């Protein structure tokens, strides 16, 4: 019983052990304790989706999760997308670059992590399915069309890569 807790978790394949305040959100833990700044924090109350990460492979809002709730979990953040050996961008990242899926980029990590879950579950989504999946992420810049284009492009690339 305490306001401080020790947690052990894996982030982008790397194990960490830290003592944290119970009230610390997972988003703040990732940003300020692990210094992984790619997980953005927009609204801090679950509305915008900028903080989306994967917890044990499932998308989640890092601002609506306490760091202590992630004890034992396997976390993927946007920093985990890039190929660690070659340094190459993930096909989803590459597609967002090529199809202009971002302007200011604030929302982008959240969109890409949501896309990662979507394309993992459904490699060939329809436009309606893409819209449904991205419905929890807000973008103030793009008007969303170029984000849809990016997800379609990423889906095609990933499919041809897995066919090859």
């Amino acid at each position, binding site marked *: *019983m*305490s*306001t401080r*807790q020790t947690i052990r978790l894996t982030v982008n394949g790397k194990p960490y052990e830290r003592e944290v*305040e*119970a*009230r610390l*959100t997972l988003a*703040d833990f990732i940003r300020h304790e692990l210094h992984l700044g790619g997980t953005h924090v927009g*609204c*801090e*109350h*679950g509305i915008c*989706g900028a903080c*989306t990460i994967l*917890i044990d492979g*499932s*998308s*989640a*809002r890092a*601002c*609506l*999760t*306490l760091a*202590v*709730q992630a004890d034992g979990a396997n976390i993927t953040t946007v920093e985990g997308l890039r190929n660690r050996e070659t340094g190459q961008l993930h096909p989803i990242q590459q597609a967002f670059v090529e199809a202009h899926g971002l302007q200011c980029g604030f929302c982008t990590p959240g969109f890409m992590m*949501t896309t990662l*879950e979507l394309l993992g579950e459904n490699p060939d989504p329809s436009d309606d399915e893409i*819209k*449904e*999946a991205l*419905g*929890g992420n807000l973008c103030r810049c793009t008007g969303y069309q170029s984000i849809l284009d990016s997800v379609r492009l990423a889906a095609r690339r990933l499919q041809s890569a897995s066919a090859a």
Partner: protein
Amino acid sequence: MKPAPFDYHAPTSLAEAVALLARLDDEGCDAKILAGGQSLMPMLAMRVARPEALVDLRRVPGLDAIRLQDGYIAIGAMASKRAAELSELVREKQPLFHAATRLVGHQQIRNRGSVGGSFAHADPASEYPAVALILDMQMVATGPDGERVIPADEFFVTYMTTALEAGEILTEVRMPVLPTGSGWAIQEITRRNGDLALAGVALTLRLEAGRCTDARIAAFGVDATAVRLTAAEDSLRGAVPNSESFARAGATAAASLGDPMSCIHASADYRRHLVGTLVERALAEAAARAR
């Protein structure tokens, strides 16, 4: 937007959780149960809620099963909404609950948010309480005095208030299998896909020999809790299921609403209008499914 400090507990059995809640209550400590955090975390962040302690149920085993038992479907309170959405059992045997689940938030929310959390939170705009009313669902609570079963029409008391006592844990929700031949529908109007509803309607409809024999209709997002629309239900008894009787039921439903909620996004009149329209549309959808 940062939660105020609190003590954090993660008990590892139901008995331990119950005893802990009782002890904290005795000590005058304002403790709250933490499930998926998808409603509690925003409240902590905005400091609308400022509990002194959180009792996280994530380590309590056995609270996340989804199973068929004695003819009803039992969903453990800690089962995620995503698990309920993906459950073949729920989709096949209780398609209304399945459809309602898909309308809750976004996948990110359903991945983390528990089924029980929505019942305990009792948001008047949530889909689940309305479905609970028309399906006569039962809530199973465990407290210091053991287990008790609370019927849906006694469970939702008012705005974000349930019949759960301090120290009681919701452990399971139970619902009947949808009878073969029953029509069903759930429709809502939201500002954006996945948002809480400005107004919504859930219903089941039974037809026999070309007549409506039984309609059960509830609205959400309009009052302090989900409400049964009994006047509209009565207007359908014995009626021929067609656009006329459905329009009449919609008008009856709208007229029967007391004083709908009003906010910057939807006035009381607009909500009343939506309920009428949604009842009419949902009846048509349900009739097409009924056999």
